[in-house]
Structure formats: C-alpha cells, structure tokens
C-alpha cells in the first residue's frame, strides 16, 4: 500500500501581528487630531435650508458662527426666534456689535457663518446683519446644505 503523504507548505501561514499596535496607534492619532469633541450646544433649533450654488469653506478656523432660530424650550416646545452666539442666547441685539468686533480683532479674516433656521423670518436676520456692518465684519456666509 502506497502512502500518500500530504504535502505541507514549508512556511508558517500566519500574518505577523507585531506591527498591528503601531498601525492602530497611527489611526488612533489621526482620528484624535481630527475629532472636534466639543460642539456648541444649540439652544435654538437650526434646520438649514438647501441651495445649489454653494461654496465650500475650507478654512474652518476663520469661521465664527451665529445661530438664529426658534428657541428650544423644555418639553420639546419651541419659543420665539432668538440669536445664539457661542454658548449663549443674545437677548440684546446691540451687544453683537462689540462681540463680533472683538472676534474680528482676533481674526482679521473672519467669516461669519449665519446658520439660520429655514422657518425663521428675515427681520431678525436684518437686525443681525446691521450689527455686523457696524462691527465691520463684512464677510458673511449663509450656511446651507447641498441640494440632493
């Protein structure tokens, strides 16, 4: 009786895993650097509108956001339209002037991104824009989503 011996590959069939932690760490650092952990807690509702002819803003550090929309009240209710800058709701529209002027001095190429709820009216935005003119932050951007 003839014996057939199974031929075996000479090399071991294992992937070397010693470099895996390095690879994983590299990915980890990438995501750590790109993550923005703390976003502004929105106190107003902002559903952006859609538009077709829009431009991308690559330099995010030039941006400063102003949120305009109906205020979120406890119990899922919505109040009147309010302006939010950074973390606070601005009750006094006239305060925007100094606020934005200070930001402009820190970042002379400031772009103000206006994130306005689609259901809001133009009146409040007009007041904000007037304040922006007074603060000489002229570059603005109406934030919109891309039309699908």
């Amino acid at each position, binding site marked *: 009786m003839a014996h057939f011996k199974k031929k075996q590959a000479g090399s071991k069939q294992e992937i070397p895993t010693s470099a895996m932690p390095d690879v994983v760490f590299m990915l980890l650092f990438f995501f750590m650097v790109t993550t923005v952990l703390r976003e502004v807690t929105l106190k107003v509702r902002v559903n952006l509108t859609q538009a077709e002819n829009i431009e991308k803003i690559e330099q995010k550090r030039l941006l400063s956001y102003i949120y305009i929309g109906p205020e979120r009240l406890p119990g899922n209710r919505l109040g009147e339209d309010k302006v939010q800058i950074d973390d606070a709701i601005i009750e006094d529209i006239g305060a925007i002037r100094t606020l934005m002027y200070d930001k402009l001095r820190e970042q002379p190429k400031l772009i103000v991104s206006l994130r306005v709820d689609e259901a809001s009216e133009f009146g409040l935005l007009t007041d904000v824009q007037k304040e922006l*003119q007074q603060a000489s932050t*002229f570059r603005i951007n109406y934030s*919109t989503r891309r039309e699908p």
Partner: protein
Amino acid sequence: MLLKKRKRESAEINGSSMADIAFLLLIFFLVTTTINVDTGIGLVLPPPLEDDQEPPPIKERNLMNILVNAEGRVLMDDEPKQLNEVKASLIEFIKNPTNDPDLAETPELAIVSIKTQRATPYKIYVDMLDEVMGAYKDLRDEASRANYGVPFSSLQDESPQQEQIQDMYPKKISIAEGGDS
C-alpha cells in the same frame, strides 16, 4: 552556602493587550469624529452708510431691484416673477444681448439689489439668492469656457485668468434693508 537561585520576575510590561486598548480608543474616536465641510452662500456686506452720506448715484437701468415680500413672492423691477424665472431674466439683464436701453449697459456696471421685508421667509430669500448666484456662475462659466476652454471653477485661485473673469462679471449684490411697506 546554599545560594538559591531565585527566579526573577521579568520587568517588562505585558504588551499584548496594548492593541486592544488602542482599538477601543480608535473606535471611540471613529464614532465621535464628524468630517463635515461647511457649505453655504458667501456674501460681502456693504459698509454702513453714514447718516449724512448720500448713496452713490447709480443709473436706473443698471440696477435690478429684486423684492421678496412677506408672502414670499418675488418682484423683479416691479414685475412679478416665479423663482425659477429669476435666473434667466437676471442673465438677460446682466448680458443685455440686444442692447435694450432698460437693461444693464455693461455687465461690469450691473448691480443686483435685493430688498426684503421683515416677515420674508428666510427659505425663500436663500432660494432667491441661490438663483442670483446661479446666474453669475453660469455667466462666469460661459466666459471662462469661451476664453480658456475650462469651467470657471477649474481656474486656479487668484490666477490672472480667474481675476479677469471676475472683473468681467463682478458680483455686485446689495442687500437693502426692508421697509415694512
């Protein structure tokens, strides 16, 4: 003397779980990361007018008045228009191919003035602004294709070609504050 050879514990840190820890962190950051690009319609506001300063004189024919009223209706030079007609009539106004004496003299002189009212819905306003931007984009694309054979967006930033096209069709958009009338 009996010297007992003691087994020394190795001073190395066990590194086998390092990959697990790294994976855990990696997954956490993967989940929390949002790579989003901000998009929107850019605009440059005009400087505020001093009280005693008269607005600079503009010929009526070079000015396209667009009014968006509280009901979201669009009026272009006192003619009611649908939103989807805005772009075509703007292109006609800016280019003025038939040398109509009521339309802009040259594209460089054309000014688009947008008037709104306090109760104008923001969505309609953005849609309208979108149409205006679309009109300028089409015109610039056309000029860029005619001169350089590529669309405007593929011209290099701050290149003389891009500046030339921008000078041909400068975006002169004025946002006028709305009266409540």
